[in-house]
Structure formats: structure tokens, C-alpha cells
């Protein structure tokens, strides 16, 4: 944002003056709220621990930037605090999280489109709001330069989601992606790489399903990233070239909300429990595993049926000679036959025109012998 110099000077001045007074204000609250064991009782019997870890607050991104408690808790200005009328601690959380939009408008607006917000609107009061994922009293800075997530923050994401989605986290933790994440691998996806962040969409819709191959392909067609694990980047193109993939991508292009029974990546490879292709129990390079996968939709499939799917390989003379040589034959046959036909038709056309002209000239000459001496 470009501002006139006068405004910039004013902003700088207030930035220097204000934090000091705001921090002092926060210290006033902490005088009581840093005492261990203080809690509030609600009408429904909930007890909420209102102790703030002073060190954590001061180290937090909010403490660091000198926010005052009343920036968020705007209704508490005096002591004794007024009765806010909250019947439960969840009432309190659901009333307070909207104050995040004062500073984080972009993120807040995104959450309004999220599956969590829709669940909340439908009356599921446990659905996550800002403060369920980001503890405002202890939240560390999670992005570095250019808004890129810090490595430590990435590691923490699945744990945050796991607070509500524990069974899925258990699957993810043992998957090829989750297991690598724990070792600090920056290439594998965390929850938000597939589901998005803030505007997390409903992953059970037809739209999400049809769009999912692109999502997987974002990483799986990235050459430099796949080269580190010796993985093929042809996975999307070979999928799209086959019946399943062509139907799915066609629907995705023309009717993104169309339901289809044609498989997308995760129907065969698994979702949160996705395994390495060589995994003895689930890996699809293991023939029995592939057959079991095919039989989910084609229950009568025999043992050689899975070979009808080329497992994302480009046809080659060693692996799939029938496919390779069939393609090679038509690569020659089509231009050969059609080219030969065009050659004959072309010469025939020219020859017949020449013949006709000659014939006409001769007739003309016979009827008007003096025109052309």
C-alpha cells in the first residue's frame, strides 16, 4: 500500500507510542490472570481455566506485537467484570472468535465458506472456529518471508487437526506422506495442502472428488520433487488417457458437480492411509493388492484383469508389447494408407482436369479451326 509521506509519519509515530501503553494495559490484566488456578464457572457447570501463561503470551505473535487484552475482549473494561451472559465456555468461544476479523479479515472471510462454518450454522457448535486451531494467547508466528509456512508450523498442522479428527490423524501418521512429514520432509503434504486452510471445503462432495486428480497432480507432476523419490510424473497423463481418467476429467471440465462412479486417484491409492506403491499390504505394485482394488468395482475380475490397466506406465516393448506394437503399427498404417490414397487421388484429380481441358481444346479447335493458327 502506498501512502502519502504525512500519513506514513503519523503511522510510524503512533506505532512507536501505542504499543507501550497497550502492553502496560495487558500487564494490568496479567496481574490477576497469571495467577495459577483461577477459573470461571458457567451456568451449565463448565469451569474454564482463565490463567494466562505469561511467558507464552509474551512469546506469542500477539504478545510480541503489543496487543492489548481488550482488543479482543472488548466487553471487559472494569473490575469486577460485567456478566457477559454466556451459559457455557463454548458460548464464550463462539462469541469471542469474531473479534479475530478486526485484524485477520482475509482469513476470517475465507472461513465463512468453510465446511466448519457450515456445520456451525447447522447447529453443530463443536465445529472449529479460529481459536480452536490458533490459541490466541500462545500462537507463535507460523509464516516466514513471503507468507510461506515455517517448517515447525508445518509439522504442527496435523496435530492441530488431530484434536478433532483423531482417527484420520492415526491413518495419516502411518501413511507414506505422514510418516515422512514426521522426519521433517518438506515435500509431503500436510492436511491443508489437500483440504485448504481457512476455506476448507467439504471433501465428500462430487465437486471435490472430480477436482481431486488435479490436486494430487499438483505435486505428482512436479518433476524436481518427484525425481527425489524416483516417482513418475506421467501419472496424470496416463490416467487421463484411460477410460476412468478421461471420464473424470471430462466431467470436471464440463460438469464439475457431476457424480461419477469412475475412480479418482484416492479410490485406488487410499486417502489418508495412502501407502507406498511397494507396500506389501496396500502397495498397488503388488499384484494381489491391485486385484483386490479392481474388484471393489469389478467383482468378477479374474487374475489377469488388472493387467488391463497399465499402472501409469507408458506402453513399452518390454512391459506391454501388445499395446506398444499395436500403437506402432497404426502410427505407420494411418499415414501410410491415407498418404497413399491422397497421392493417388491427387494425381487422378490433376490428370482428369488435364484430360478434360485437352478434350475441350480439341473440340474447340475442330469447331473453330481458324481461331488458333
Amino acid at each position, binding site marked *: 500500500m502506498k501512502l502519502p509521506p504525512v500519513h506514513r509519519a503519523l503511522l510510524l509515530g503512533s506505532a512507536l507510542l501505542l504499543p507501550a501503553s497497550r502492553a502496560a494495559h495487558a500487564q494490568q490484566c496479567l496481574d490477576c490472570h497469571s495467577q495459577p488456578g483461577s477459573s470461571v464457572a458457567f451456568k451449565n457447570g463448565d469451569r474454564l481455566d482463565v490463567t494466562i501463561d505469561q511467558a507464552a503470551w509474551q512469546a506469542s505473535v500477539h504478545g510480541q506485537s503489543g496487543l492489548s487484552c481488550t482488543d479482543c475482549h472488548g466487553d471487559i473494561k472494569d473490575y469486577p467484570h460485567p456478566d457477559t451472559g454466556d451459559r457455557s465456555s463454548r458460548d464464550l468461544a463462539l462469541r469471542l472468535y469474531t473479534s479475530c476479523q478486526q485484524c485477520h479479515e482475509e482469513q476470517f472471510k475465507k472461513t465463512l465458506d468453510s465446511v466448519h462454518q457450515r456445520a456451525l450454522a447447522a447447529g453443530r457448535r463443536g465445529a472449529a472456529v479460529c481459536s480452536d486451531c490458533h490459541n490466541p494467547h500462545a500462537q507463535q508466528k507460523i509464516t516466514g518471508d513471503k507468507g510461506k509456512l515455517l517448517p515447525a508450523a508445518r509439522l504442527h498442522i496435523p496435530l492441530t487437526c488431530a484434536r478433532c479428527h483423531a482417527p484420520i490423524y492415526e491413518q495419516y501418521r502411518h501413511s507414506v506422506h505422514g510418516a515422512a512429514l514426521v522426519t521433517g520432509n518438506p515435500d509431503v503434504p500436510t492436511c491443508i495442502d489437500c483440504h485448504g486452510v481457512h476455506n476448507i471445503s467439504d471433501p465428500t462432495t462430487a465437486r471435490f472428488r472430480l477436482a481431486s486428480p488435479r490436486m494430487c497432480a499438483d505435486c505428482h507432476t512436479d518433476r524436481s520433487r518427484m525425481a527425489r523419490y524416483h516417482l513418475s510424473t506421467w501419472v496424470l497423463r496416463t490416467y487421463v488417457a484411460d477410460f476412468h481418467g478421461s471420464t473424470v476429467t471430462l466431467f470436471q471440465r464440463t460438469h464439475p458437480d457431476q457424480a461419477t462412479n469412475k475412480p479418482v486417484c484416492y479410490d485406488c491409492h487410499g486417502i489418508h492411509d495412502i501407502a507406498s506403491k511397494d507396500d506389501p499390504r496396500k502397495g498397488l505394485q503388488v499384484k494381489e493388492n491391485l486385484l483386490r482394488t479392481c474388484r471393489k468395482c469389478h467383482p*468378477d475380475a479374474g487374475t489377469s484383469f488388472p493387467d488391463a490397466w*497399465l499402472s501409469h506406465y507408458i506402453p513399452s516393448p518390454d512391459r506391454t508389447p501388445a499395446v506398444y506394437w499395436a*500403437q506402432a503399427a497404426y502410427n505407420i498404417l*494411418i499415414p501410410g494408407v491415407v498418404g497413399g490414397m491422397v497421392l493417388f487421388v491427387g494425381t487422378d484429380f490433376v490428370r482428369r482436369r488435364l484430360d478434360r481441358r485437352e478434350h475441350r481444346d480439341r473440340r474447340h479447335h475442330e469447331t473453330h479451326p481458324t481461331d488458333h493458327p
Partner: protein
Amino acid sequence: MSTPADRFVPERRYPRFSPSDRVQHLVMLASFVVLAATGLPQKFIYLNVHLLDQVIDAMGGIETVRVIHRFAATVLMLATVYHLLDLAHRLYVRRVALSMLPGYRDLLDALQAVRYNLGLAKRRPRMDRFTWEEKVEYWSLVWGTIVMIATGFMLWNPVATARFLPGQFIPAAQVVHGGEALLAVLAVLVWHFYSVHLRHLNRSMFTGDMSEHEMEEEHPLELERIRSGLEPSAAPEEIARRQRVFLPLAGVVALALLAGIYWFVTFEQTAITTLPPR
């Protein structure tokens, strides 16, 4: 020199295609067009061409297109069965010459035509009832139909096919089916359109006959034979006797072939309907 009165004498016309031939051509033409229109866009989905997506949409969407394709394929198979019975009728009942069979003569005609076009021969080959160009077309159709029915069976019934053939034959069948389709459509566009539309609009497949002038131009040898009265014909009572033998036999064979088509079409539904996703 012709007198004005001559102009009003109707030109003699020579029969070329029976109503049965013409109906076969029409049915084949319709199914071929529908098969190409519903098949080729499927072959090129992966190219991500907006226009092709719209064409598929206009035909009712990909699932519908696949059903229409199978319907047209069934029509073409029925036409093939009819054609086989018609050939048998020709062979046994009418005992007419199989004028579509290719021979050494056709190779010579083709070479002479090429040489004439290049200015290496003095005259065009004089051709009989079916020219070498027409034989190329007919036998291409025969070959193409065999290939398309065989590979179409494999794509229609992949689970059954994989029971007696290696699994990779199914993607190979997909390659052949698509390649042969492209070849057939291009061949029709070049060869057929040139010889019966562009070079000279030949209406005989619709009217059933040809003018004397057309016969002189395209089938001079046949015309000579007709003029010389050498066309053989069997006695009507003999034909009626053979017909009595032929009809029950043909009925049995037709039923067997129709049962085969029914089996082909209903054997498995994997390629159109799979289980709902879980």
C-alpha cells in the same frame, strides 16, 4: 450428327444395386456416421479440446454417448449378419459371379491407373462391374468391420476377455479400435468422397442404376458383356427350388448369429455400469 428429336429419347439405364444393396448401404452409412461421431470424440478427450467437450455434451454427455455408440455398433453387427446371408444367397440361390472378389487383374488395373495418371501409360484401365478402387473400398470395409467387432468385443467385455487373453490385450484393443476408426474415417473422407462425390457424383447407390454414359466411363467391360447378351441367368423354377433349400438353412444360421450378437451385447456391463463408489 444427332437430330433434335434424338434428345428426347430417354437414355437406357443399367441396373447396378438392388433395393437390398441400397438398404444395406444406408444402414451401414447411418451406423458408421453415428459410430464415428460418438467414438472419435471419446478417443480425443485427453487432448482437452473445448469443442470436443461441447460435442460430447450436445450428444447427451459421455455416459449417453457410450450407450449410443453401443447401439450403433449393434445395428452395424446386424447389418453384417444380413450381408453374410445375402452373400450366401448370391452364392447358392442365384449363383451369380462374385464380382467383388479381388484378382490379379485388379492389381494390373491399379498399376495402370497410377501409371496413366503419371503420364506413363497411354490409356486408363477399362474396368468391369467393380473397379479396383471399389474393391479397395469394399475390402477395407470388410477388414475394418472385422477389426472393430473383435476389438469392440474386448472393450465391451473386458472382464470376460481377460479370462482367456492377457490383460494388456484390452488396452491394445483400445489402441487398435481407435487407430482403425481414425484410419476408416480418413479413408472414407479421401477415397470414397473423391471417387463418388468429387470426381463425379455417382448416385447409383441411391437410384439403383446408371446411365449408359456413366457405364461407358466407369464400367466399359461390364457394358460390353451386357450388350453382347452374355449375362447368364438361371431358370426361375431352378431358383425357386434352391430358395426352398436356402431359406430354412439361412434361418437357422441367422438365429445362431443373432444369438451371438445378443450374447456379445449382454455378456457383461462392466464397461458401462460399475458399482457405485464406496
